[in-house]
């Protein structure tokens, strides 16, 4: 049972995400070679490496919103690409919901993910079913919101979120791409998992596992 998350714990989770992205970068690039230009793993590795460097310099008294802003801008500056604006907007919008806080509860965590998912939608202008990371973010954020109305156990909430993210990531395999470079493939985009959905599911999985291991 875990009811609260501190900024120090959040930074440990972020570092775990950096490490897992680094481990999975070849897999992410391989997915991207099937439907895109093959660089998603490289992009994620460059971005999260910059984040890892950044969090080691953050002051101890930083609040959630400040940490999120710092992480977002270092990620964005390092990568650009599509992933940069999308993940940076997610972090900035999510962080804005946690203004001046150093400890958050389950419903605040749920608001964080909800705002992050909406930020991705605003920035990328994709719709559900377009075969993008949004197909993971929207349903996962909704699941987290639903579960957090019946429990305040952060670990349970994140576990359900991680399961949903994984399931939704797999569901992008049969979708027809309607956004980004892969949209030009038409029917040939089917049969491949969307790389952005895969990196998003990896983040939810790591968020859960790292929280459990705190």
């Amino acid at each position, binding site marked *: 049972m875990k009811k609260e998350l501190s900024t120090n714990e959040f930074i440990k989770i972020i570092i775990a995400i950096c490490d897992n992205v680094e481990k999975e970068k070849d897999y992410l690039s391989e997915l991207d070679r099937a439907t895109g230009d093959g660089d998603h793993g490289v992009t994620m590795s460059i971005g999260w490496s910059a984040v890892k460097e950044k969090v080691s310099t953050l002051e101890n008294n930083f609040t959630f919103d400040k940490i999120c802003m710092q992480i977002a801008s270092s990620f964005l500056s390092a990568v650009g690409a599509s992933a940069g604006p999308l993940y940076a907007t997610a972090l900035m919008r999510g962080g804005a919901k946690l203004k001046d806080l150093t400890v958050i509860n389950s419903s605040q965590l749920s608001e964080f993910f909800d705002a992050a998912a909406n930020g991705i939608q605003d920035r990328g202008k994709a719709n559900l079913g377009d075969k993008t990371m949004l197909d993971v973010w929207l349903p996962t954020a909704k699941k987290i919101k639903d579960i957090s109305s019946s429990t305040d156990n952060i670990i349970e909430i994140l576990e359900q979120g991680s399961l949903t993210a994984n399931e939704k990531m797999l569901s992008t395999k049969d979708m027809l791409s309607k956004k980004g470079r892969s949209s*030009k493939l038409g029917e040939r985009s089917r049969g491949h998992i969307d790389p952005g959905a895969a990196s998003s599911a990896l983040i939810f999985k790591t968020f859960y596992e790292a929280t459990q291991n705190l």
Partner: protein
Amino acid sequence: MFNVDMAFKKIINDPYQVVDEMVEGIVLAHSDLLKFANNNKRAVVRKDAPIKNKVGVLIGGGSGHEPAFLGYVGKGLADGAAIGNVFASPSPDPIVDATKAINGGKGVVYMYGNYAGDIMNFDMAAEMCQMEDIPVKTVLVTDDIASSPLEKKSERRGVAGDFYVFKIAGAAADMGMELDDVCRLAEKANDMTISMGVALGPCSLPHTLEPSFVLEDNEMEIGLGIHGEAGVRKGPLQSADEITTELMDKILNEMDGSKKVSVLVNGLGSTPLMELYIMYRKTYEILKKNQIEIHSSFVGEYVTSLEMNGASITLMKLDDELQPLLERETLCSMFRV
């Protein structure tokens, strides 16, 4: 299948430093023409920027397409370029730095190929610059006819047609036109520019050294994108004349009765000039046969895709408004017009 004996070899140091080291090399080699904006190694501008009372032309995109985009910075063309990682859009930072460095008081036009990542980053940068009262407008290049049908022209990718669209806008800005006029002419140039390409072999990212796509030993792919995006048709490799005829058939479908063009035969990275000129020869013959006048021709590497083997043909349809802009003198680091 991809032949393991053909493993990619590159003259690099650290794959994560290739872009920074390339840009340093370019600015060192052409220090008479180029400088960094705000010491940002991903923002390169004309040495004499900002030019007072001139619309600033800012181009950009991922690395790996050299001479696009840095090579287009110079008098009569772009005032600055924002540079991303390999095949990835630049982030808003260098776009903002370059915008401020080239703003001569008449605003700045952003021009780049139509890709989702570039749009998000350039739009974020445009919002930031507008907050600082720099007027910014955007014109996207959408010349690749293989990527979407004509009725969805605005969804097409930007490929080698960048050259013509940037050239026209650069000339218009150089003549002292206002931001709205520069944009109108750039959009017109984009409407008049059509490209189609063929790929014979993949490139590889320096970080992975994996082929960006797979073709059989004796296979080619028509309409493949400049980042290895899949094309419209894979088939056995044909002769230069057959390939050129197939590309030109598609391009001529969109001529709209135009009778005068400029021709660009562009190499994608490892196709020799010999082969590009063999394609040009056939292109010339086809245009003659269709009674289309060739105003000018460009053969060489203008928008590449690392070491991809392949080529594209671009036509820009010319009228009395575009022709003098195309003819206007240009001086940039990697080529002259």
